[in-house]
């Protein structure tokens, strides 16, 4: 095999990969993925909470992990809105408040009738992790006297009867590390008895699986992009996670096909050599 042929082969592989990854991004396939039980659990928690109830979504990450966690935020906000639930956004990470704003902005395009203050509110970032959550469990208004825009919490319609964590139907923590989902489990669930679910990056997900147990310390978990795509499948949306997952799957399949072709080629070369040797 001449090196020139090798070079051409390489270029074909590179070109194929480029096309194969680009296409699903522009023209989403929307492959239905099989839903894993932990994602189903998280979905059920939102699905079975009553209309008009209030949920807390905690944005405990920053742009560096947004690729994996932001699609989860989209999907879970959309699900809650479609069930007519209201959302309080908080953040244990400084840049979480921006992530929340971005996520609401994205979803509002689909729900033009939802309005700030009656259907959702962004309370912003508070330092302190565990201690802050404990304080929220007693009196949320002392922790967040005003929302992220500076509006006094007394003037926000949907918070009139919302005094502490126990009033929340469930808590979602989208968490890239500490403080994050672990603190919400330990304070939100273990101390105040609110159901906690959430999402993490694929890498850190295995560490939280032990919390999904008989006591339901953690009510399901989304781990990484794949889980976000599964959640999108459950709410019948072809969102950014599904699209990216499509691109992933196609790329993986292409690589497998390449390996098969490579083997066929190697087999042919070997047979040719063997035949030539016999001929000698």
């Amino acid at each position, binding site marked *: 095999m001449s090196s020139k042929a090798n070079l051409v082969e390489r270029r074909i*592989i590179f070109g194929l990969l480029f096309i194969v990854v680009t296409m699903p991004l522009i023209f989403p396939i929307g492959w239905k993925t*099989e839903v894993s039980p932990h994602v189903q659990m998280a979905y059920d928690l939102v699905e079975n909470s009553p209309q008009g109830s209030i949920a807390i979504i905690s944005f405990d990450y920053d742009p560096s992990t947004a690729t994996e966690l932001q699609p989860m935020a989209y999907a879970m906000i959309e699900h809650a809105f479609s069930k007519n639930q209201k959302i309080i956004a908080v953040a244990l990470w400084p840049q979480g408040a921006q992530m929340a704003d971005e996520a609401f902005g994205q979803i509002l395009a689909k729900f033009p009738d939802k309005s700030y203050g009656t259907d959702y509110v962004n309370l912003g970032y508070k330092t302190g992790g565990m201690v802050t959550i404990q304080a929220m469990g007693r009196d949320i208004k002392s922790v967040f006297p005003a929302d992220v825009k500076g509006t006094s919490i007394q003037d926000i319609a949907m918070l009139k009867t919302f005094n502490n964590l126990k009033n929340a139907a469930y808590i979602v923590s989208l968490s890239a590390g500490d403080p994050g989902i672990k603190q919400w489990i330990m304070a939100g669930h273990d101390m105040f008895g609110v159901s906690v679910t959430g999402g993490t990056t694929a890498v850190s997900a295995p560490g939280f699986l032990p919390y999904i147990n008989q006591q339901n310390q953690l009510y399901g978990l989304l781990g990484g992009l794949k889980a976000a795509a599964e959640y999108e499948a459950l709410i019948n949306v072809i969102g950014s996670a599904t699209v990216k997952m499509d691109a992933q*799957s196609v790329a*993986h399949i292409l690589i497998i096909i390449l390996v098969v*072709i*490579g083997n066929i080629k*190697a087999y042919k070369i070997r047979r040719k050599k063997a035949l030539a040797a016999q001929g000698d």
Partner: protein
Amino acid sequence: MKRTLPMILTFLVGMIVILSEFIPHFPFSKINSTLESWYLIISGFAMLLGLISLVRVNSSKVASKEENWQYYLAGLISLFTMVIFGLLWGMQETAGLLGHGESIQNWLGKKPFDYLFDNAYLHLSATMFSLLAFFIASAAYRAFIIRSFESNLLMISAIIVILGRTSFGTMLTSWLPQRLYFLQMSYMTDFIMKYPNTAAQRAIMISAALGIFGSSLRIIIGIERSYLGSDK
């Protein structure tokens, strides 16, 4: 003298570092972190050497009009632009010699240094990194060939894991009855990662640590000393 004294110095420093690992009492408790922070300062000074080397190599190529000299000139210009911008108006929250350059910021949206960082450097870095996607495909195509028993093991475990990580792979084996759960792609992926993979990684880590032990000891007692140059 030019070689013996530094050798003795290496020995002393090495021994003190090892000793202080076991001694919680002051001053030993602080030695290792102090030496590590010193490293930052020493290498900070040395940075200048690298820069001079870069400028020297590139400018000699430009001066002698070597092949491709235009690009080396572009490299030099980029380097000096970045350094001058950084020195004059600083980066992010840090002010430079001329302060924060508010008027430029009004016009550019951010500091010139940060503008170049965000719009050139970050894209260059991310794109270079993303080349890996292409190379991992071409490497797989070439390497995962049925040849010997060993290379088959490599290929089979790679394919199981590649498939097991996507929804497609899970689908392939989802028809299997619950009884045969251990044959499912995702289970096999986890199994390989958890047991044989961990075993091999551990073996590499343990023996490499012994290699590091031997190497470090040879350096400390002065058997290995090529980095100190010659006596002349």
